[in-house]
Structure formats: C-alpha cells, structure tokens
C-alpha cells in the first residue's frame, strides 16, 4: 500500500544526517521531527531560532516563543535566537543542510511550485523562496497526485514557481524520486506499490 502521512515523514527523516541543521515546512514536513531518532538534528525556525523544541505543556505557552507557523513552541539547551536578517542570511548562505517542504507541483527539472494558485487567494510565499534558493538540499514531501487524480510530478510546472531547478528529492505516498539529468529517477517504491501505478500517476519523465 501507499505510504500515509506518517510513513512519508518517517521516510523523509532517513534523509537527515547526524549534525545537520534542518528547516521543516508546515504540514507533513512538521511530522518529520517525530522520526529523527538518535540523530543529532537541529531544527531552524526561520523567524529567528535554531534548536526548536516541542510544543509547550498547557499553561506554559509563551507569546514570545513561536515558530514560523506562528505556533507556540519551546526552547532546548542548544537554542539560539537571532533576528530575521540573520536567519535568512544563514538560509541564503547555505548553512542549512536541508529543507523539507510541501509542494503543489514539481517538474522533472526540479522546478517547484508551492505558493500560489492564480485566481485563488494568495497568501504569500513567506520564506519558501529563500529556503529553496539557499539551503543545501531541498526535499519535497507531497501526495503523488492531486485530489482529481492528476500527477503532481510534471514535465513542466503550470503554477507560478517558488524556485527554478531547486528540488533534489521528492518523497510521495508512492515512492522516492530524485531530480537528475533528463527527468526523475525512481529511487524507491513504497511497499506494495507497483511500477505500473507509479507510471500511470506520473506525468514527468521517469528514469529507471
């Protein structure tokens, strides 16, 4: 069967290496934190924090301590705070080893669209454009197809881009794909998923 949200997050956590500084996007990427295990991973919150801890216990919420999703969080013994210019300095400067983000569409050349649907309410790109342009490795977690059953792995993105040629690896409910010369390389299939299923739900050129 295809992976569920938690299995996708668990698979994404395998990408993270000991000692890495990592930025997790909103949604399924947030769940990745539950699966890092013994690895020494430091989470960045781009509003100005390294060493993001879990949600606070009830009654211990601090309005001065939130993450980039505006959620109340806690600090750890490794935590450091800084301002937004410094925070995005380290993002743009490539100091963050990886970002794990959701997406609406990914193209086979690594183009990413995850911030805007023309004609719909546009909320803004927040820090997504900075992250995909700056971090060492961009890992996308998303469903393989949209609710209409149409592939989200495309030959070309149809939506306005968040970044051009920025995605390194895509983890969907069906498997793991790398952006390589000429298309997407199938790295791994979810247990019980067949190559035929993947082919039928993938518009992008699949290699291997």
């Amino acid at each position, binding site marked *: 069967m295809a992976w569920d949200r938690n299995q996708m997050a668990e698979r994404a956590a395998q990408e993270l290496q000991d000692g890495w500084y990592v930025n997790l996007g909103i949604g399924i990427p947030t769940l990745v934190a539950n699966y890092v295990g013994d690895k020494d991973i430091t989470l960045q*919150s*781009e*509003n*100005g*924090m390294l060493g993001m801890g*879990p*949600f*606070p*216990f*009830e009654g*211990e*919420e*601090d*309005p*001065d*301590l*939130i*993450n980039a*999703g*505006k*959620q*109340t*969080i806690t*600090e750890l013994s490794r935590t450091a*705070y*800084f*301002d*937004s*210019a410094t*925070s*995005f*300095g380290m*993002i*743009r400067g490539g100091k963050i080893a990886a970002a794990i983000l959701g997406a609406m569409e990914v193209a086979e050349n690594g*183009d990413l669209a995850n911030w805007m649907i023309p004609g719909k*309410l*546009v*909320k*803004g*790109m*927040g*820090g*997504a*454009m*900075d992250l995909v*342009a*700056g971090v060492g490795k961009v890992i996308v977690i998303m469903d393989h197809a949209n609710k209409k059953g149409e592939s989200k792995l495309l030959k070309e993105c149809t939506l*306005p*881009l*968040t*970044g*051009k*040629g920025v995605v390194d690896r895509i983890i969907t409910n069906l498997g793991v794909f790398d952006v390589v010369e000429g298309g997407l390389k199938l790295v791994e299939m979810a247990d019980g998923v067949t190559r035929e299923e993947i082919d039928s739900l993938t518009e992008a050129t699949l290699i291997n």
Partner: protein
Amino acid sequence: MGKIYNSAAEALDGLLFDGMLIAAGGFGLCGIPENLISAIKDAGTKDLTVASNNAGVDNFGLGVLLQTRQVKKMISSYVGENDEFMRQYLSGELELEFNPQGTLAERMRAAGCGIPGFYTKTGVGTVIAEGKEVKNFNGQDYILEEGIFADLSIVKAWKADDTGNLVFRKTARNFNPPAAMCGKVCVVEVEEIVPRGSIDPDHIHLPGIYVHRIIQGEHEKRIEQRTVRQREEA
C-alpha cells in the same frame, strides 16, 4: 529628557505624514509594536505604505490600520491571517508587494547599512524576478534587490535603557532589528525601561544609535496559534 516619551502619541508627534513609508517589526502577532500601531490609528495618518512581514489579523496588529483604510500599500511576505486584508486586496483597494521573507529582511537591513542594492538568488526564475536586473556571478544568476529606506520605523523590544540600547526576548526579536535600522527615525516601545548600565554591554541586541524615541507600553501579546502537548502521566 532625551529619548524617553510618556505615550505613544507623544513619541510619534511630528513624525507622521500622509503617504509615508513605515517599516514595522514583528512576525505574525509576535513582537509587534501594538501601542504605536494603535497611536497611528488614532492619528489617522493616511495613504501609508507599510513594510512588515505580515499584516496582523483583522482586529489586532497592523490589521487595525487596514480596517480604518489608512494603508495604501503593504510590502509583506505572508498575509494569510487577515480576511479584511484579502477583501481590500481582491477589490483593488489595497496594493500589495510580495517579497520573499529573507529578501524583505535583508532589504531593511541593507538600507540601514547604507547599501542601496544587493544580489540574491532568491526568486530567480520566478515572478519575483520580473523587471529586476539579473547578474551572473560564477556561473549563477542573481537578481538585484533594493534597500527599503523608510520614513519611520516602529519597533517592539523587551527592555531599553534611556540611551536606547535594546534587548529583545526569544523569537519576538524577528524583524525588529532590521526594521529599526532602515528608518530615518525609529520609535520603540518596550515592556520595561531599565537604568543605564544595567544591561551588560555584550548582551545588547541593538545599540541605542538606532533608536530615537522610546515608550514603555502595555502589551497584550496575543497568541495566534496556541499549540500544546499533553503532560505524560507520572
């Protein structure tokens, strides 16, 4: 008596004019200059352009200036939490310039540091790059972004001494230092004014040179997304 003023209205006196550009600190509702925003509402200054990462919520933060239609244009990275904002934007009453969050922070910092333009790869190949100069460094394309030189900075800090040396608290620091840097005049509201010399000079986040006027304010410090975890059974 130097930089300390008795009220937000007093601290803003003579600094406000229609059509001005204001840079505001804060991220979401965290570390926002609540009292100064409220005083700008009361002053009724119009046609404002406001550079701020977010636009508040309907009835708090910069949202209050949207309700009163005092804002002509927002320069922001994310405005998702504000329905009135969206209504005005979609009806064409409000201009909106989206900036990637890091570009916005750096544009403020750059202006404060006398840098009128810098190159970044953020946004290359996207709508953000449209109309902007592209330059190649070592085989990679970058776009030129310009400093945001504001008429006024409004900022929230935790503590200040009377010379304006500031300390922020946790993630409430966020856009406040870069916003403070980029204004011709910077007005700061704090939770506490402390005696000169009581802040270790190695703990000061923003030196008083950036700060022109200070007030001590009352802060509601509203939480936008209250998330908690359960205590495990003992």
